[in-house]
């Protein structure tokens, strides 16, 4: 196996910074005896979880919509998608919550307590997560998780934005312009539906990931 191909396959796993690595390690030690310990186990299966996350900051705690959808080699299991909006209706900024919910067209509104959060992390499991500009998008979610469950998402992360940039650079070394998600989708001819909703965004990033994997496999 050529070095390039090896790198293609594992590049995604090295994408985190040293800080996230260290944080993950300390999280793992802290949770070693909790029911969440299995989330820190390495994943051996074929599936990934595409994650999209939109947060609207408010004065108390931010309103967060999350969509997680499982993808395997060929399929995107949109029928089993996990979509929720975390935010409490009692907080003073309920108008913000309503506006956010309408904009993101995202699932049920649930209070951001540990039950709902653990349902989310258990859905994701220890599968690698895929998303567009993942680190930035899940920042708010990670902060909430650290607050409630004492750990941030420990999963391996694949940032399709980075994959896209990398692949683009490989084809056109002189191109430097950072592209938006919509531009990236158009660039690789991935058909999109309902990009404005969080689930639409998660599905689109899953499709883009599959597409890029395929292109990389062809190039190798």
């Amino acid at each position, binding site marked *: 196996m050529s070095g390039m191909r090896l790198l293609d396959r594992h590049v995604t796993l090295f994408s985190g910074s040293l800080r996230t690595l260290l944080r993950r390690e300390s999280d793992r030690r802290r949770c070693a005896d909790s029911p969440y310990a299995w989330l820190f186990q390495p994943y051996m299966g074929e599936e990934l979880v595409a994650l999209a996350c939109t947060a609207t900051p408010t004065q108390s705690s931010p309103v967060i919509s999350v969509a997680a959808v499982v993808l395997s080699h*060929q*399929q*995107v*299991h*949109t*029928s089993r998608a996990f979509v929720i909006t975390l935010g409490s209706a009692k907080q003073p900024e309920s108008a913000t919550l309503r506006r956010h919910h309408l904009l993101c067209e995202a699932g049920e509104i649930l209070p951001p307590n540990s039950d709902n959060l653990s349902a989310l992390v258990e859905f994701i499991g220890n599968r690698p997560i895929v998303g567009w500009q993942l680190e930035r998008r899940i920042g708010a979610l990670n902060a909430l998780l650290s607050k409630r469950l004492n750990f941030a998402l420990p999963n391996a992360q694949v940032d399709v934005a980075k994959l896209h940039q990398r692949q683009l650079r490989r084809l056109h070394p002189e191109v430097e312009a950072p592209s938006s998600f919509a531009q990236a989708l158009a660039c690789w001819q991935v*058909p999109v*539906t*309902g990009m404005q*909703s969080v*689930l*639409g965004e998660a*599905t689109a990033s*899953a*499709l883009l990931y*599959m*597409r890029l994997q*395929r292109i990389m496999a062809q190039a190798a």
Partner: protein
Amino acid sequence: MVDVDLSQLPFTLLDDEGRDHIRRGIDLAYFDRDEIILETGQAGEFVYLIHKGEVAEIDPTLPSSTARIGHYTAGDLFGAISILNGKSRYRFKAEQECLCYLMPKALFQQLCRHYPDFSSFFRQSLTHKARLMTEKRAEGGVTMAGFMLAKVSECMRAPLLMAATTDIASAVKQLNESHADSLLVSTQDDTLGMVTKTDLLNALVLKGSAVTSSVDKIAHFNLVTVAPDQYLFEVLVLMTRHKVARVVVMEQNVLKGVVELTDVLSYFSSRSYVVSLQIEQATNLEALSAASQRTPELVKALMAQGVKLRFAMDLLAALNGRIISKAWEFTVDKRYHEQSCMMVMGSEGRGEQILKTDQDNGLILADETQWPDLASHMQTLTDTLIQLGYPPCPGNIMVSNPEWVATVSQWKGNIAKWARERDGDSLMKLAIMLDAHGVAGNPSLLESVRDELFERCSGDELLLSYFARTALRFSTPLTLFGSLKKPQHGIDIKKGGIFPIVHGVRTMALERRIKATSTFDRLDALVTDGRLDRRFADDLGEALALFSELRLKQQLSTLETSADAKETNAQSSRRANRVVVQNLSSLERDLLREAMHIVKDFKQRLSHRYHLEYS
């Protein structure tokens, strides 16, 4: 919930709840180029709805050139039949990279249980699907606006005015003479009254009035009046409100006419009434020409109302027949009418020409006819028809061509000669003669020629085989996109679809001595005869109707565009035969696909029956 477009059939057969179920229950799948999505004999697990890409349906038992039997593209649905049958009959392969929505088997079956319409959609034959489409089109009804904007002046009758002192007897006489059922009476101080047939009957029978009494005793003087530029639907409202069946049209206190309820209703139900009326009333060429120009408008209206193409064809054939026969009456002297028969041939003879595409006609003379200026008369007739909007025939099959004017015995001789020679030209002429339909003059002349034709040809197996072979001349495109260099060129439905059906049915009709000339009537007769089973004949008829309809749509749209762009007739007619598959809706594509398969099936039957396998 996935954002997927479910506004097409069959999903429109579900309600919102059902569609939500689908949105919640479907997955997305990505298939690589040349990947097999569903293998022959594999159990169907999903219904596939293509979001992007193209999929080929392949019958692996066939040689590779003919193996591709279907083609699906964005918006199309496949795999449902595999679920209903338990396993897939054919192989489905991605032609390009494909993105499909997958509806799981369980969800599909659940929907089928809850929505009988949805379920039967997948089990139905072409006939049913075509009906669904007609219903859908009727809902559109854009052209209906034209009817709603009709004015009173377009629908009124000339008034029948009499003095109030007239007696009942002469009023009845006048009514009978002018085929009316009401008349207006004016008194000396110029007030208007109306007398209807019912009034007269009541007066005579119930009141016992004498026939000599004057009509002003029984006339109604409180009349509803309208202006000529009012909308017709207003009149309808007025009639309903006042419970009357007739209104008087007045313009600045001057009597203009009468509008009757029956006229309004016929006007709204179909404009054919007016066109046919205009044709009947035409007393000169100009009036006839004006009526003749209006037929495309009538066709559009009929299509918008969702009239079945077969009936539209019948109506137009009748109207065209009347126009030609009128033209004949105007140009040919009455003394020749008994000794000659004008026949129309080709699509017009079969009654399948909806728009006037060309004139194919000929003349049969009785033996020993003396007609000195025959040639010049026939030239005038052809010119008249051109003036009426029938373009000249490119093959010069017209009465102005002496080759298509002959006496009965000459025709019989020709037929014998053609049947003997059996070359391409003769076979074509036989085919043309077979479709001949008498429109003017003495139809018994054509009958005797046709009898001769059956006598010579029906029993001749060899001739029939030669004759039938032409039906296989053009290949029927089964893959709707694959074989074309450029998809925007479209597929030729005249050659690929219409011609094989028409010619095949014509051959069978010749064999069974069926005198009907329209393909639909021939199919019916063949069923009665036992040569075809009812179901297959229906499917063939429906396929033909579908092809004709698609072609008609093209023709109508070319008719609109060619008004601005100067284009030669040949160009536009060639374009009218091409259907660009990408422009059709997915249901129409589905229908087209099925219809093409029926044609293929029919061709196989033909080659089996007439032994064309080795030709």
